């Protein structure tokens, strides 16, 4: 169905009781051209672009629980491309530009709001690093502006510039950064992929990947059923290692818990995404959506340590004291897979027909469109698309790391700095 004023009115006349389902409850077939393991944003986007850009339609997305139930539905929905290294900037900028056209491309409103992402500098050294980032971004044609203290104050009048623990020295803004509705991105890709013939299958857990003589043959489901496919994409976030370790592949990744939380609604005062000590944005309803640093120990529990939330609240109150007494409605956690350089691992593997989209750490959501587009091309060609070639698994052996910890708001231990 193509959404329009006419379909809205027609459905309203029927009491909204006859809206069609967004995607079919697809039956799992015995063989596909490509199997994608993991129905998060990256898996669904890869399947969509395989069908849309390359005409590969015998594709299944196998999701062990429900689509978007992992990190695609647990992030703080921020999109931006203000990275440090040219390889990252080119990749994330492609992603942001795809986000800018995504609502039209998918025929589904992903509620992109390009309200700007404002990073705060807490020292001259911070500001100097931002000056360097702004210079690199602008040289590559990406929007970025260095802000003085007065500019920051004008953007966020309620921000306390001198706190007992910090002084704001300025900041930098990416005006085209912002937020998108993360559930809508997942559902939009699932709906569009389904319309092109992709089978999106939920409650379908893969137990193992079938490999013979270094070549992929398909997958074995948890219930024992075998599905054939010459090409398998693993986009299973923190479930990826358990699937590929039996094949002799290890990942240079540590799995940690990252928490986010949302407050009761308050009168609007924040019309940018604020990034510094904590990151925060205000929803249309007025709730504050806040995230901070990781719990620094390995975990797959999807349950955060209690001490982290008060640390995030304290950092936010430090910057906006008026929020004292604010009540928090919900808190949730995801398992993030951090590689040491805070850049993804996406592309081919030493096993023929096996492709990875993993190590998305704390930056996966913003990368969904380009990750899917580039990996689909890679699956078809059998070699890495130029935008993801720098993000191969091999870089940990050659030493060609793409160190983006700072652009992810982290130090190398995964602590927000």
């Amino acid at each position, binding site marked *: 169905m193509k959404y329009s004023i006419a379909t809205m009115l027609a459905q309203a006349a029927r009491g909204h009781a006859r809206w069609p389902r967004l995607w079919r409850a697809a039956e799992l077939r015995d063989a596909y051209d490509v199997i994608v393991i993991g129905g998060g944003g990256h898996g669904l986007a890869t399947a969509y672009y395989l069908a849309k850009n390359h005409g590969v339609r015998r594709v299944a997305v196998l999701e062990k629980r429900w689509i978007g139930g992992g990190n695609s539905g647990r992030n703080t929905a921020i999109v931006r491309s203000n990275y440090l290294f040219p390889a990252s900037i080119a990749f994330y900028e492609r992603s942001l530009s795809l986000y800018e056209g995504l609502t039209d491309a998918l025929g589904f409103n992903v509620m992109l709001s390009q309200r700007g992402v404002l990073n705060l500098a807490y020292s001259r050294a911070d500001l100097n690093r931002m000056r360097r980032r702004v210079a690199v971004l602008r040289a590559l044609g990406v929007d970025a502006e260095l802000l003085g203290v007065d500019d920051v104050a004008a953007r966020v009048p309620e921000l306390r510039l001198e706190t007992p623990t910090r002084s704001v020295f300025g900041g930098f803004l990416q005006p085209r950064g912002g937020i998108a509705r993360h559930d809508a991105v997942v559902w939009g890709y699932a709906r569009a992929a389904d319309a092109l013939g992709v089978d999106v299958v939920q409650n379908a857990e893969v137990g193992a990947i079938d490999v013979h003589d270094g070549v992929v043959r398909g997958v074995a489901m948890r219930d024992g059923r075998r599905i054939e496919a010459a090409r398998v994409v693993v986009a299973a976030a923190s479930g990826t290692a358990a699937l590929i370790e039996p094949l002799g592949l*290890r990942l*240079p990744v540590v*799995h940690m818990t990252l928490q986010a939380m949302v407050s009761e609604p308050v009168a609007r005062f924040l019309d940018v995404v604020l990034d510094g000590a904590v990151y925060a944005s205000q929803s249309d309803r007025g709730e504050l959506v806040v995230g901070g640093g990781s719990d620094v120990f*390995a975990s797959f529990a999807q349950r955060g340590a209690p*001490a982290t939330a008060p640390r995030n609240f304290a950092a936010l109150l430090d910057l906006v004291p008026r929020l004292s007494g604010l009540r928090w409605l919900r808190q949730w956690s995801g398992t993030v897979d951090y590689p040491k350089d805070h850049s993804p691992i996406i592309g081919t593997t030493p096993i023929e027909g096996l492709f990875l989209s993993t190590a998305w750490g704390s930056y996966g959501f913003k990368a969904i469109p380009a990750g899917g587009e580039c990996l689909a091309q890679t699956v078809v060609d059998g070699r890495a698309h130029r935008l993801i070639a720098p993000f191969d698994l091999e870089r940990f052996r050659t030493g060609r790391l793409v160190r983006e910890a700072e652009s992810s708001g982290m130090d190398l231990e995964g602590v927000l700095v």
Partner: protein
Amino acid sequence: MWVRCPWCGRRDLSEFVWGDDASVVRPANAAAETDDAWTDYLYFRRGTPGVVAERWHHVHGCGAWFVVERDTRTNRWRSDG
């Protein structure tokens, strides 16, 4: 969440620093090691969820380093069943 220090007993997580998987051992003779072995030591980690023996450091306490087993699926300590 809490951690049990062998000397100080049960204390809050905030007193401790996680010290990674205890099965990861620094190559004894770094100069003689191959690049591959060194890369494995630096970066590559087991990522299948389950019980892991890991190092913890009671940094805001007695300073001890010790090894305990924890189930990374639930965050429960093995000693608590």
